[in-house]
């Protein structure tokens, strides 16, 4: 199966972060960052 080496290591260890599986916490962190980033970009960069 095609898979990134980092994910293979994570799959093996199944670490938890803040009570959540790492994959779940990692993706949640990025989605929150992207939502904040989109709002700031719309406010400062996007035209009109």
């Amino acid at each position, binding site marked *: 199966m095609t898979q990134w080496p980092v994910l293979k290591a994570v799959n093996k260890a199944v670490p938890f972060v803040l009570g959540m*599986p790492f994959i779940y916490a990692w993706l949640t962190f990025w989605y929150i960052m*992207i939502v904040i980033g989109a709002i700031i970009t719309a406010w400062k960069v996007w035209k009109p």
Partner: protein
Amino acid sequence: MEYAGWPVALTIMVIYILIVGILGYFSFRKLQINIEDYFLVSRTAGFLILYFTIVATYHSAYALLTSCGVFYKVGVFFWAAGTWTFLTGILTYLFGARFWYLGKKYGYITPADLLADYYESDLLRGIVAVVLAIFLIPYMAVQAMGLGYIFNVASGGHIPYVIGTWVLLFIVALYAMAGGLRAVYWTDFLQGIWMFVAIWIAGIFVAVKLFGGVGNVFHTLLEVKPKLLTVHVPYTYWFSLGIIFSFGIVMQPHLWMRYYTARDPHTLKWLGATTPIYLVFIYVPAGFVGLTAAAAVAKGMLPEIIKTYGSPDATLPALLTKTAPAWFTGIFLAGASAAAMSTADSQMHAFSAVVTRDLYQKLGKKEVTQETLVKQGRIWVFISFLLAAILATFKPGIIFDIVAFSGAGALQLLPATLGAIYPFRFKFTRAAIIWGIIAGSIVTLLFTKGLGTKLGMPAHLMNPWGFHGGMIGLFVNFIVVFLVSLFTEKPSSEVVEKFHGYLEKVIYGE
């Protein structure tokens, strides 16, 4: 499915349907008999109404039924679904604002209006309209299937799947025919709020009720089914889905046409920035449901969902009917119906707009009154209802695969769209775009799992290297577009100025 609380659950669903019907009736009374009002609410939609119609249209039966089932089957990695949903929100600005400017200036109603005007081709209009209409039918059928499943569960199996499918889809067709896009928008507003609240309450409820909280669900899975906390799907496949479920869905007429209807471009900019909040975070409670179900099945608290109910799409209804009071299940199932109905109405309406505008009015060269066009629109909404209901009756596949296939088809319009709305130095030509769409669509059909093998393709060639057939189609499409563009006539300077010159001027100033 035996379910003792069905009279209460069914009554709540009927009350919900009555409320939707009343909204449809009031929007019918506001309708002006002209094509811009019937298909585009006279381009007057404000932020709030457009917000809920975009999110409710994007999230269909798939979001409330299928996503819970996919979490149940593949585990936490389905949270990667957030990648394509935030991208969809951002495309509302990157594509939507440009569609809006051109639509407002040149009076476009459908996607083919814009593309045929830029590439100066009636043949392209016909191809785009036919591709969009054909790939939309299975997507409409998905909503009908969802409605059939929900009504069957809510009635404790007393109302057969086929009856639920036909009756609920007919109600959708009725208000879409009568009130046009205004009816669709008003009902989507209610449905968008209802489905979001319902799935969040349901997700938290089942996790707390069965395991005392979401944290305990994760720890139970670590103990009994740790594979569900890992990534065991090829990233090439997820990358494909990321492109198909964002670009592919935005290319479909039911979302594209929404961008024409905004009151102003500021509305679209702020929709682009804020719709990801709803679009992404609806999957959080869906994850709670799917993972709670998986933990409960592994612990022997629930029967295995797929074996018992025949489909992972039954995960949430199965969980609720086993754990929640009937009134609560009724409210949630109404929310799930809202998700399916709010997408089905938009798709029927868009199907009707494509056929009426592109095939009947423009290609048929009909000089007809506005009344005749609205009448045609209503006839085609009804025909779309018949097509979707007939297809749904035969259950053509699982919801996940059908939605992916539909998005993969519409994705083949991406090179044409990019060429029309972004001023790249290398211009795509009319011939290149036509051959690209034809080649991309054929490759998509041949390399999509399930369909390709039915068309005689060897099974080992399906989803090559883990990519979905639609991505292979898009790759071939782009190659054909680049190569043919080298040897064929470029768009005229007048057309380039009309599109790219105008967009640069209004977006970035002189």
